[in-house]
């Protein structure tokens, strides 16, 4: 198992370096980052001054070296808009985003797991149809539109929940549902499909041939195997939700990283965008690593590998 984890760790580090390189080049995609970051009506003199101040006039490899050196010490420059170190601005926003993403994940899992299991064990039943319906709707309803419709019905019409802001549990409900809806569909589909698939495995036939009861087979033989497939996708979906939070946090004025992305992009505050991109990508790489570790814990085939 150590070897497995070590190789995953090395992979993650290499991937992270790749992400840094990728971000470096994306910001320079237009060839002139200074013009990109300055207001459109800025004078050529101002742009030139900015270019020199940011070090964009140096040769590319020097810029790259400085960028990587900064990255290793967590220094991604200063936000143009907030006039503060970019990375620390990002870090301040973590709790809000994490709270929202975890709530959304919780919502998605709590609904999808029972639903997917019931649907998968009773193919063709009403529950199965419901399962497939939710799986489909989750994939076809854009979360930004869902968020708006939730506001129309539950905030404007019924006045059950606030329209925006981060103020206690009630303000968390709508954004969490909107953000968790896509993963909900994904998980429901996945759980249902993997229950269906596992039910066809030879070892389930063996379990039946032992005279075990449906309930016991479900809890002991099917759940654990479903959990493995679920673990593999929860991390990915969590990463997806960080992207989705750009819309949801903007719509609900939720003071997290997603909203900050939108603000930074609108303000053309690219040092901040750069810091967010590196941080989020790093977070996803970390999630993948955690997923691999979780795998190793659940699956004895990996745990006992030499």
């Amino acid at each position, binding site marked *: 198992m150590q070897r497995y984890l070590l190789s995953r760790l090395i992979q993650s580090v290499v991937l992270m370096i790749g992400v840094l390189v990728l971000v470096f080049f994306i910001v320079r995609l237009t060839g002139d980052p200074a013009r990109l970051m300055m207001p459109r009506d800025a004078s050529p003199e101002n742009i030139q001054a900015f270019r020199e101040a940011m070090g964009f006039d140096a040769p590319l490899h020097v810029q790259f070296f400085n960028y990587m050196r900064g990255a290793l010490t967590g220094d991604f420059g200063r936000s143009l808009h907030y006039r503060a170190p970019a990375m620390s601005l990002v870090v301040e926003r973590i709790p809000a985003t994490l709270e929202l993403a975890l709530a959304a994940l919780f919502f998605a899992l709590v609904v999808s797991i029972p639903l997917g299991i019931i649907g998968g064990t009773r193919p063709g039943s009403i529950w199965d149809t419901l399962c497939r319906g939710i799986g489909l709707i989750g994939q076809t309803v854009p979360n930004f539109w869902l968020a*708006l419709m939730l506001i129309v019905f539950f905030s404007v019409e019924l006045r059950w929940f606030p329209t925006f802001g981060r103020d206690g549990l009630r303000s968390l409900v709508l954004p969490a549902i909107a953000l968790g809806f896509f993963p909900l569909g994904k998980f429901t589909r996945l759980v249902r499909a993997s229950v269906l698939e596992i039910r066809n495995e030879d070892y389930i036939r063996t379990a039946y041939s032992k005279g075990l009861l449906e309930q016991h087979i479900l809890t002991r033989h099917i759940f654990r195997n479903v959990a493995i497939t679920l673990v593999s996708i929860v991390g990915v979906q969590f990463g997806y939700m960080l992207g989705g939070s750009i819309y949801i946090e*903007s719509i609900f004025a939720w003071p997290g990283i997603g909203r900050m992305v939108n603000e930074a*992009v609108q303000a053309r505050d690219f040092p901040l965008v750069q810091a967010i991109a590196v941080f989020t990508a790093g977070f996803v790489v970390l999630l993948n690593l955690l997923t691999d570790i979780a795998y190793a814990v659940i699956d004895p085939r990996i745990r006992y590998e030499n």
Partner: protein
Amino acid sequence: MRIDAIDQRGVYSPLRRFMKLILRDKAGLFGVILFLLIVLIAIFAPQISPHDPLQQNLRLSRQPPAWQAGGTWEYPLGTDNLGRDMLSRIIYGTRVSLTVGFLGVLIASTLGLVLGMLAGYMGGRTDSFIMWITNLFLAVPYLLLVVVVASILGRSLLNVILIFGFTNAPLFVRITRGEVLRIRKSGYVESAISLGASQGRILFDHILPNLIGPLLTVATFEMSGMIFYEAGLGFLGLSVPPNIPSWGNMLSAGRQYIQFSPWIAAYPGLAIVFTSLSMNLLGDWLRDVLDPKIRRSA
């Protein structure tokens, strides 16, 4: 001869089997019809639109849909904040969405096919390098990537198409490579190799035809995804320029008036839902039909 006669007696005819496949999957049939309908709407947008989608009329701004108090059948789905006809704008928006979807998938799949075949076929360093880049792109949160690149490149239809074309390629690379490796290992390709078939021949006679099924299925789902994300970019004001009627731009405008004129955001969203629904159903259906393993069980 006689054995054949016996064998065929109880087997359903191909036509009956096909009908069974279609009828069994009513959802798939619905998806196919809906999809064709949407394509037709996009093609004949000028003919079926009741109004000019760009015609502003501030005196008629924010008229509700016909069935609500204050609405008229002149503007069935109401008007937006500038008094433009919602229905006509939604009809024209189909064009932007389908263009981005079709061309984006075309670029992504072509790129993915070439790189994936290269990786799967060459192996070694080429493979490692291509897969490393691919995994790198898959590691970055997709939406963030798209939003950042779109904000850097600026608003234009071409940029949007290119962004989706390139950022979606990694998925196609991965699938192509996986299939190439799988097919290469299968018996018939190995025997073709041992019979001395040339590399190119194997690639085009054996591997390419086998790739069409899985790629077509994925392409359908991806197209739906691109339409989704294009609208998302539009919503943030990062997609096509605001003077082009697109569902994302409409949603972006509608968001400001969500409290008092919710229809401005509601109907373009429904258009996205139906388009996405048709493609997802189509994709599910394709997957079932193209995968003989699933087809077996009734």
